[in-house]
């Protein structure tokens, strides 16, 4: 009996200590929360998560947060920059949202966040803001488009991102070619600049994560089609012009491109370009600072040019991707959050941010800054956006499943590259997925 008691006692102690471990820490956590709320009067804590952060970007965020906290000693910003692929960031955010612990501020603005009822509308905050006129009207509009029903603003825009080709001017010069302005020129250059014996390729295609997005933007700029859906609801993505383009573009794979393009994501594509393997890659200006570093600022070795003119003769750019800072409904100190957001949009900060990210500032004063006009690739981007001749596609960023459709198409794109599927089959399937998504969206909104 005594023996038994001993065991019982010790087991009890063990269980107790384990549960103490749990509840003790639990208590600790709560205590912390309590002390936070008692400190409320002195310091408001807000949290800010940023996606796709590089070391330079992280440093930038830490700097501006320090400046902000110095100006606003009553606010403390908890910053978390998640580097690498977006999937890591999305996973983390999804978990936090499911537990009602979404970060107060996020910089990855997607339609599904609206349909999941995570975000706080910002219209009233904006209306009451004295500097509201400084924010470019186009960016506000493109963000409002994500709420097709009421057109509310769910993210304060900070910039516009443009697509472009990154090219090697030195290679073009050596081969006696002009930088391409039409698609036939483009494909001719791709062919002529390929020299496998030197491990030189005319092109590098993004075949891995993000491939569908790039291909989609290229297709529409090739065809010049601006409507994603016809009046009777048919998707235009499998238009014959797109088939023609895909056959030629993806047909270049492993002929004028490296074999490992098949599963290249952005960073591998950048590595290919920066290690003198490819004459042309497709991306946005966000990679400018990385190229500057890799090529030691030698502008003979990298330049950004707009997508070639469409076969219809005008230049088409994808619809401006909604970009902005969002405020979560669950945020405790919404005024502090808004204060940080407006700080983020102030002339100086917005200018520094956009220069680092290679984007056109949403703050009009910042957009007029010297660097936008002086850096050649920034100027060409800003000219492209401001040119009244430029047409924009009505890219359906508002579909909550828009990104998922692209993810589903990606393996099919690889199949087309590997000649296991025809471009037509792939595009027909893509069209079906898009229409299905649109239908489901319209049903849920009716």
């Amino acid at each position: 009996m005594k023996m038994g008691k001993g065991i019982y006692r010790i087991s009890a102690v063990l269980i107790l200590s384990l549960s103490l471990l749990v509840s003790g820490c639990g208590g600790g956590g709560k205590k912390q929360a309590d002390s936070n709320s008692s400190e409320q009067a002195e310091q408001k804590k807000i949290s800010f998560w940023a996606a796709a952060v590089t070391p330079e970007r992280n440093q930038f965020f830490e700097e501006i947060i320090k400046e902000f906290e110095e100006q606003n000693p009553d606010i403390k910003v908890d910053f978390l920059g998640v580097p690498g692929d977006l999937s890591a960031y999305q996973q983390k955010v999804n978990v936090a949202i499911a537990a009602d612990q979404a970060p107060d501020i996020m910089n990855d603005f997607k339609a599904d966040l609206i349909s999941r009822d995570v975000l706080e509308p910002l219209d009233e905050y904006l209306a009451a803001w004295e500097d509201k006129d400084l924010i470019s009207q186009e960016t506000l509009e493109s963000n409002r488009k994500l709420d097709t029903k009421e057109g509310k603003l769910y993210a304060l825009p900070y910039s516009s991102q443009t697509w472009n080709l990154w090219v090697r001017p030195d290679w073009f010069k050596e081969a006696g070619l002009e930088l391409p302005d039409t698609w036939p020129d483009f494909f001719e250059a791709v062919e002529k600049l390929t020299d496998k014996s030197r491990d030189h390729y005319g092109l590098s295609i993004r075949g891995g994560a993000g491939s569908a997005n790039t291909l989609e933007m290229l297709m529409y700029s090739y065809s010049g089609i601006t409507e994603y859906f016809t009046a009777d609801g048919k998707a235009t993505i499998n238009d014959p012009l797109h088939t023609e383009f895909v056959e030629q573009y993806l047909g270049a794979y492993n002929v004028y491109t490296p074999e490992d393009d098949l599963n290249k994501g952005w960073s591998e594509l950048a590595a290919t370009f920066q290690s003198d393997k490819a004459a042309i890659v497709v991306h946005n200006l966000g990679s400018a600072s990385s190229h500057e570093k890799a090529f030691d600022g030698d502008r003979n070795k990298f330049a950004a040019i707009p997508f070639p003119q469409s076969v219809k003769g005008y230049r088409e750019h994808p619809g401006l991707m909604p970009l902005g800072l969002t405020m979560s409904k669950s945020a405790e100190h919404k005024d502090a959050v808004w204060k940080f957001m407006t700080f983020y949009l102030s002339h100086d900060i917005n200018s520094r941010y956009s220069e680092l990210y290679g984007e056109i500032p949403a703050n009009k004063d910042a957009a007029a800054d010297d660097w936008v006009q002086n850096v050649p690739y920034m100027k060409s981007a800003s000219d492209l956006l401001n040119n009244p001749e430029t047409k924009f596609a009505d890219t359906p960023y508002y579909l909550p499943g828009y990104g998922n459709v692209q993810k589903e198409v990606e393996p099919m794109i690889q199949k087309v590259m590997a000649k296991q599927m025809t471009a037509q089959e792939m595009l027909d399937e893509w069209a079906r997925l898009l229409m299905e998504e649109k239908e489901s969206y319209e049903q849920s909104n009716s």
Partner: protein
Amino acid sequence: MNKRPIWSKIGSKLLFYIPLALTMIFVLLPFLWAISTSLKRESDVISSKIQYIPSPATLDNFVKVWTQNNFSTYFYNSLLVSLISVVAITVLSIMNGYAMSRFKFRGKGAFMLVLLATQMMPVILFIIPLFLIFKNLGLINSPFSLVLFYIVSQVPFNTILMRGFISGTPKEIDEAAMVDGAGRLRIIFSIITPIVLPGIVATGAFAFIGVWNEFLVAFSFVTTPDRFTIPIGLKFMIGEFSVEYASLAAGSIIGLIPPVLLFMYIQRYLIQGLGGGAVKG
């Protein structure tokens, strides 16, 4: 007459040394290549001319990775989480192992199933409900949420191992001790435990390496950089330097050092320890 034994001797030597050499090459090549890459300049790494011995060799990549990342903080966090988890896992495994090897009881099979059921779904599906549980306990962003989860996920395998080790010890030891008036707990913790010590080192090592390398749960539950563990730091580093292969290699080597050192130190116990359990289990 004389030649045959010599030939067969050489033959059996070759039969031994060739596979051994191949094994060594297979195992060591990734390490050696990572070391070589980490000592190169970034421009030498991406050049089409492949260098085996870096020239010039440089330690810059290590300095860069170490100073840009907060590896010392991550190291401390990892150590804290791992040590607490390993102690708890070991104690619980001994208790379970003893119960399962010494007693017949109703529900033993069911308990075994419960243990194994915890291993049968990818953890990734559990993340959100686990997050809710730990949120209710006030344990989000606390190392103890990780500790609790690691205990639950590592105890099953270690219990099964420990059961084997304890079964390997003769029951007469317990009986003799009981005759001397020892309580059951004394038997478990001061008589059986020393006998199966190598086994305990083995399970401890399994648990340690499992916990030390865990990424998914740590990444999901930790929300501020000051609480990051080493695997999160490494994953973030991949994101940061994905184009910079030399830095990436340097970071990998830094990440490899602790488990490799630990492993080299304990491997002899590991082999002795597992022998008792696995066979007689």
